[in-house]
C-alpha cells in the first residue's frame, strides 16, 4: 500500500521477498502453536502431527478440509480487505455471512420448481444481496449519523445470530419442527463438486475469481484508485482528487457486505446444504486476520486464506486426535493481527516522518 513511496532498490514486491516473508509467517505460526501447546501442557509433537494430518497430511485433508475452509475465508477475507482499504472498518463480515446464508437458503428452498442452474444463480445473488443489505444498515448509520462502523457491525453480528436462531426455529424450520435447522437443499441445487477432490466444491473457482478480479480492480482501475485514495487520505481525495469520498466508502461497504454474504450462500450451497445457527465457526472474524496478514491485497488473500483454512482444518484434527481445544486457533489469529499492526506501527515510526493517515498501515 506504500507502493511508489519506497526506494526501488528494496524490491519489496519481488517473488523472492514474498516467499521469504511467507516462509517466515508459516514458521511463526508453527512456532506459536508449538509454544502454546507447550504452555498448555499438551504433547507438542503429537499436537503438531495432528495439525499436519488435518491440514496438509493427505490429499483428502488438503482438498476436503483445508481448501473447503479456505473458500469462505477467501470471500470474507477479500470483503474485509477492500473495506479496510477504503477506510471502512467492517468487523461485520460474520453477520453479513449469516444474512447471506439465510437469504441464499431461503431462495434455494422456495424456488424448487425452477431449473436447478437458475436456482443456484438466484440463491447466490440473493446471498450477496442479503449480505449487502445487512451491511447497508451500518453503512447508512455511518453516512447519516456518523456511527462508528466497528461498533454497529459488531452489534449487527449479534442481531444476525439471533435472527438466524429465530428463522431456523420459525419460518425456515424443517417440516417436522424437531431440529433447529432448515430443510435440506435438494441435491440438484448443490454447487457441483470438483471431481477427484473429495468434498471440495466449485465455490473455490468463484472465490478465486473474485479475489483475482478484486485485486485487478484495486491495482488497475479508476474505481480502485478512488477506493484506495478515499481510504488513505479522505481529505486529499476529496479536495485534490475531486473524489466523492462518502459515496466511494459507502459503495465499498456494500460490496464488502455482498462478498461476505456470498460466502454464506456458497457455504450453504456447497457445504452445509441447510441453514442452522452454527453455520460459521467464526469465518467473519478470522477474515480480519486473513485480510491484515495479506496486507489488504486481494491477491495475497488467496494465500492467507489457504493458510488459515489449513490452520482451522488442522485445529479440528488437534482437537479430535490430541485433545487440544480448537479455540487455540483464535489465539493464534489474534496474535497474528497484533504482530501485523505492531510491525506496521514500529516500521512507520522508524521510517519517513510522513505520518500515515490511513487507519491501517499493515
Amino acid at each position, binding site marked *: 500500500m506504500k507502493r511508489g513511496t519506497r526506494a526501488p532498490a528494496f524490491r519489496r514486491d519481488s517473488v523472492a521477498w514474498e516467499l521469504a516473508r511467507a516462509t517466515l509467517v508459516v514458521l511463526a505460526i508453527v512456532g506459536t502453536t508449538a509454544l502454546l501447546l507447550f504452555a498448555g501442557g499438551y504433547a507438542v509433537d503429537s499436537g503438531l502431527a495432528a495439525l499436519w494430518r488435518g491440514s496438509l497430511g493427505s490429499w483428502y485433508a488438503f482438498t476436503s478440509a483445508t481448501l473447503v475452509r479456505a473458500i469462505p475465508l477467501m470471500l470474507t477475507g477479500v470483503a474485509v480487505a477492500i473495506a479496510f482499504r477504503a477506510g471502512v472498518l467492517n468487523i461485520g463480515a460474520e453477520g453479513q455471512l449469516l444474512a447471506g446464508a439465510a437469504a441464499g437458503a431461503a431462495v434455494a428452498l422456495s424456488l424448487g420448481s425452477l431449473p436447478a442452474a437458475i436456482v443456484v444463480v438466484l440463491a447466490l445473488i440473493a446471498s450477496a444481496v442479503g449480505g449487502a443489505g445487512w451491511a447497508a444498515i451500518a453503512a447508512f448509520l455511518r453516512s447519516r449519523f456518523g*456511527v462508528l462502523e466497528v*461498533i454497529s457491525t459488531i*452489534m449487527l453480528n449479534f442481531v444476525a445470530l*439471533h435472527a438466524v436462531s429465530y428463522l431456523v426455529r420459525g419460518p425456515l424450520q424443517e417440516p417436522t419442527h424437531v431440529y433447529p435447522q432448515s430443510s435440506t437443499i435438494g441435491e440438484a441445487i448443490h454447487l457441483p463438486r470438483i471431481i477427484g477432490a473429495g468434498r471440495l466444491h466449485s465455490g473455490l473457482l468463484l472465490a478465486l475469481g473474485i479475489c483475482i478480479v478484486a485485486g485487478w480492480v484495486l491495482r488497475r482501475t479508476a474505481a480502485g484508485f478512488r477506493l484506495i485514495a478515499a481510504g488513505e487520505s479522505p481529505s486529499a481525495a476529496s479536495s485534490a482528487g475531486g473524489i466523492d469520498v462518502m459515496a466511494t466508502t459507502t459503495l465499498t461497504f456494500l460490496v464488502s457486505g455482498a462478498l461476505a454474504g456470498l460466502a454464506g450462500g456458497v457455504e450453504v450451497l456447497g457445504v452445509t446444504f441447510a441453514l442452522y445457527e452454527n453455520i460459521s465457526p467464526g469465518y467473519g472474524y478470522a477474515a480480519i486476520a486473513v485480510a491484515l496478514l495479506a496486507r489488504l491485497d486481494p491477491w495475497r488473500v488467496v494465500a492467507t486464506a489457504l493458510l488459515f483454512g489449513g490452520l482451522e482444518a488442522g485445529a479440528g484434527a488437534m482437537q479430535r486426535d490430541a485433545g487440544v481445544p480448537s479455540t*487455540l486457533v483464535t*489465539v493464534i489469529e489474534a496474535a497474528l493481527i497484533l504482530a501485523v499492526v505492531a510491525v506496521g506501527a514500529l516500521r512507520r*515510526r522508524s521510517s519517513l516522518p510522513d505520518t500515515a493517515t490511513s487507519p491501517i498501515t499493515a
Partner: protein
Amino acid sequence: MTDVVEPFLAATIRTAVPLALAALGELLVERTGLINIGLEGAILAGAFGALVGVSSHGVALGFMSAMAAGLIVGLLFIAFVVWARADQIITGTALTLLSMGATGTLYRAVYGSSGVALSIPTSAALPIPGLAGLPVVGPALFSQPPITYLVYLLAPALAWWLARTHAGLALRAIGDRPDAAEAAGIAVDRARALAVLFGGALGGLAGGTLVLAQAGTFAEGMSAGRGFIAIAIVALGRWTPIGVVGGALLFGAASALQFAFQAMGWNAPYQVFLAVPYLLTLAALAGAVGRTRAPASLGKALEPRR
C-alpha cells in the same frame, strides 16, 4: 402491580451494574482521546479471572483476580497503542479476539471440553438497613451484592474528580487537545496509560460481576457484546459519569422488559428480546450523535512519538 414492578426494577439493576462498571472505565479512557474496543476482551478476561480466583480462594479473591485479568488486557492495549502507536481499533479488536480464544482454550483445558456446569460461590446480597425496607424500590436498589453499591459510589466520585480536580482537568485537556496538553507539561502518554489501566480493571470487575454476582458460573463468550454496548453507553451518557449511569439503567430497563412482558403473559419470539440490547445500542449511537460533544481527539490516530 408490585409483582411486576419489583422484579422489573431488580432485573434493571442487575443488567445495568456490569454495563455501568465497564462504561465508567471506558469513559475515562475516551476522555483521553482513546477508544478501547478491547473492553469486550477485558470483561471476558475478568469473567474467567473471577472463575479462577473464586474456585481457589472465594468471592473476594474472585473479584481481585477479575480485576487483574482486566488489567492484563489493559496492559496489552497500552503496549500496542500507547507505546508502539499501533492502530487502536484493530488492536482493540484483536485483543477481544485474543481474550475469546485464550479464555475458551484455558476453560476447556482446565475445566473440561464440554463445559461442565460449574457451580461456584456467589456474592450474597447485602441489604442496607433501613433503605432495603422501602416499599417497591427498597429490595431492588438496596438489597444487592456489594459491587452494586460500588457503582452508586463510583459514579458521583468520578463526576467530582473529573470536574473539580486538577488531574481531572488534565485528563479532559488530553482528550480535547493532546498536543496542547503535552505542551502544558502534562505527561500525556502516562495519563493515557493510567486511564487504560483503570478502564481495564473496571472492565475486569464487570466480568467478575457477571460470574460472581449473577450467573454463578462461567460460559465461553459470556460477555456477549457488553463491552461494545458499554462503549455505546459512554456516547449515550455524553461522556459524563452520571449520564453513563443513566444510560446503563436505560439499557438495563430495556433488557428487563422481557421479564416484565413474560410476567404479563406477552408472547413474542424470545430472540426478539435477546436482540433488543444490540438494536438499542444502534439506536443510541445514532441518536447520541450531533446532540453532544465528544472529546475532540477521540479515536484519532495518536500523534507520532517525540
